[in-house]
């Protein structure tokens, strides 16, 4: 046991202390958090937008009179469908590399490219989550809103979306956690995120144990922390039910 502890201590020094290798981890962590944060914001923005288009179209396609409004809505719906199909049908690593090597071939801002790639990817999943939330609110709620004199958007804004948000919060939190872990493929475009930091240390010290277990623990702690935050938010939102 003493031997093992001593060995671990030596390993710890080799992997994290020597040559200031912990700097890779700290820098990587900040990159991972930055990319995740901005990608989540972008993803939710895109997702809500797409979800509103899709659910508005699904709910109203029968009653709408033919004309410019219907045409625009159908066109937006088709574009959303294509977006969802393409993004959900291809792996995020491939999307990231397409972004980096093809679409933004001339840009050197890797964090921006990663935020766009992960945000656009996440947006597709968020869109379906939010849409399921909007569709899950009882039609009677909508009719009640309209009969009280709210127009379509007011009903959405004040009656449907708040209820939908509560319904989808667990799924959204899950999407956030998935995204946080998904950013671990950022190393493919030489972005030094947390996982790549572990890889770099591993390539210097050739001891896989501590770098890998170390970054795994950091991811785990982050996920546990965010899960707790979401739990608190959920509890708070439930107050209104009493």
């Amino acid at each position, binding site marked *: 046991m003493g031997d093992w502890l001593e060995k671990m201590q030596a390993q710890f020094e080799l992997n994290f202390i020597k040559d200031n290798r912990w700097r890779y981890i700290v820098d990587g962590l900040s990159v991972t958090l930055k990319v995740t944060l901005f990608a989540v914001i972008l993803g939710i923005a895109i997702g809500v937008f797409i979800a509103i288009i899709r659910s508005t179209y699904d709910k109203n396609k029968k009653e709408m009179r033919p004309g410019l409004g219907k045409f625009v809505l159908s066109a937006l719906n088709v574009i959303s469908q294509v977006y969802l199909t393409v993004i959900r049908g291809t792996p995020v690593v491939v999307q990231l590399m397409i972004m980096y*090597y093809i679409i933004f*071939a*001339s*840009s*050197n801002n890797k964090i921006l490219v990663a935020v766009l790639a992960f945000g656009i990817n996440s947006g597709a999943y968020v869109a379906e989550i939010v849409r399921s939330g909007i569709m899950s609110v009882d039609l009677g709620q909508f009719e009640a809103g309209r009969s009280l004199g709210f127009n379509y958007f007011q009903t959405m804004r004040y009656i449907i979306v708040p209820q939908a948000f509560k319904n989808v919060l667990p799924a959204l939190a899950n999407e956030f956690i998935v995204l946080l872990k998904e950013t671990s493929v950022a*190393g*493919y*475009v*030489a972005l*030094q995120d947390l996982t*790549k930091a572990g*890889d*770099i240390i*591993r*390539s*210097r*010290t*050739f*001891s*896989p144990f501590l770098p890998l277990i170390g970054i795994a623990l950091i991811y785990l702690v982050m996920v546990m922390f965010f899960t707790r935050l979401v739990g608190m938010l959920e509890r708070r939102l439930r107050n209104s039910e009493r």
Partner: protein
Amino acid sequence: MKKFFKVILATTMVVAMTAALAGCGGSQSADQPKAGDDNESPQKETLIMATNAEFPPYEFHEGQGIVGIDAEIAAAIAGKLGYDFEIEDMAFDSIIPAVTSGKVSFGMAGMTVTPDRLESVDFSDSYATGVQVIIVKEGSQITSVDDLFADGANYNVGVQTGTTGDIYASDDIEGAGLGTIERYNKGADAVQSLATGKIDCVIIDNEPAKEFVAANEGLKILDTEYAVEDYAICFAKGSELTEKVNGALNELIADGTVQAIIDKYINAE
């Protein structure tokens, strides 16, 4: 009907065996057992070589297999020692962990002997010399290695994670505040980024550099070298293989086989 299937099966097996034997015939030495006594010969042990087959001409994918200088030298060594031979392809920075954990018999990937690596593995004698060169775009501000180390230099330097280019440059460029190192999983990815102007130069081994420059227009290799180094095969610490392989390797160097293999890939252009 059953008999018919048996005949088909037997024929297929014979064809497959012949093909397999023909496949290794080229690279293995003459003291290979004859095809006929295959059944009687004792079970041969297999040497598994770990490599990163993204490093032409030392190792690269061609058709269904991995070929190159390292692959052929290793096959020749295995043949001389009477082992079967297999190649496993992995990320460059996974090779040493694979060797130390015993997942593979040895690692051979244009790998340079460095003090850090010697702490984890044993190395064979050197079988080839590698040169680390710098690839830049045509008309780049960087015209010699010294430009990278000039006062106030601040370039984005691309490398492959865990290669000697990465290790040296992390130290003497990034460590000295003379630029940023971008670490790619593959040399080709770094070169791709250079071609699109994301980075200013790539530090990489000379031979793959030549192939990359040939494949991408508008790139060139600087005349001055970044570093000169010796390639060797790595083994788990204290492995008995080290000595055996060294013996076979030195014989192959002495009889010109190694040089012939190197010439075949490097000078035959």
